[in-house]
């Protein structure tokens, strides 16, 4: 792809999003427009998919909603509407796409935790 075209895309990592990995439990703060006012909506769940693709890159968060219904939301990495992402927990997983979680609920949908050494601040 032409260098000039790439320069338009300005693909620096989004400063609001820390490095994510599949299996991470995250809390996403996204700005949504409701009627004529804007507010922050929280989505907390497991990252089941990270999709590459330059300006179209996205990640999908799966959470269990009311009555045990699974809800998935996909956020573009470069969207200015993603205000903040907190990583709450790293899950130990062996594959990149965690679609197997869709067929599961309750105890079988748990992921073992992967402890990460955080550098002392």
């Amino acid at each position: 792809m032409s260098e000039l075209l790439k320069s338009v895309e300005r693909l620096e990592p989004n400063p609001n999003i820390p490095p994510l990995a599949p299996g991470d439990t995250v809390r996403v703060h996204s700005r949504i427009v409701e009627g004529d006012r804007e507010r922050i909506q929280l989505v907390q769940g497991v990252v089941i998919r990270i999709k590459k693709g330059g300006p179209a890159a996205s990640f999908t968060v799966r959470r269990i909603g009311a009555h045990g219904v699974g809800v998935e939301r996909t956020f573009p990495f470069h969207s200015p509407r993603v205000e903040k992402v907190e990583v709450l927990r790293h899950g130990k997983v062996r594959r990149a796409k965690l679609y197997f979680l869709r067929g599961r609920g309750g105890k079988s949908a748990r992921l073992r935790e992967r402890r990460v050494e955080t550098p002392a601040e």
Partner: protein
Amino acid sequence: MKGLLGRKLGMTRIFDESGKVIPVTVIEAGPCYVTQKKTVESDGYSAIQIGFEETEQRKLTRPEWMRLKKVNLPPLRHLRELRMSDVSGYEVGQKLMVDLFKPGDKVDITGLSKGRGFAGVVKRHGFAGGPATHGQSDRHRAPGSIGSGTTPGRVYKGTRMAGHMGNHTSTVQNLQVVMVDPERNLLLVRGAVPGAKNGLVLIREAVKQ
């Protein structure tokens, strides 16, 4: 009427302030030079001729190069004419930059569409083709009937059939300018424009505003 020549770089997507995704075509537009002014008195109609993309002198024929040299312009690869009713604002040798346009403007973009060769009726005209199953043989992408019987006894002119597709000059009207970057000579318009990557495109102010 204002216009520029440019080179299509390709498509991508950008986010606007509200977070909406806009599909854009990136065009490297200009700098162009006014190479000739045509007036009703001298030519019977009024237009300006613009040139784009400096090249090597040896790539032009001597007459092409000499006439540019006469007006102190570098050798230019592409020349196009822009018809306009009033050429008084232009001078030969004047440099036209992408800042001719600003975000929100509507433009018409002309390019040479990608050649598809001899294409069947499904690709060329969007026909549905025949049934896939139930004993069909060789009818999957056939056009079906091309007319009536004894009356009129011929196939009407203009009936859509297979034939050469693409590789013709095509214009898309009323594309919206999304972003202009005078530093890098970039023009971003919403939507697709005709032609392949690195194809020459002519950007003009929209006729139907």
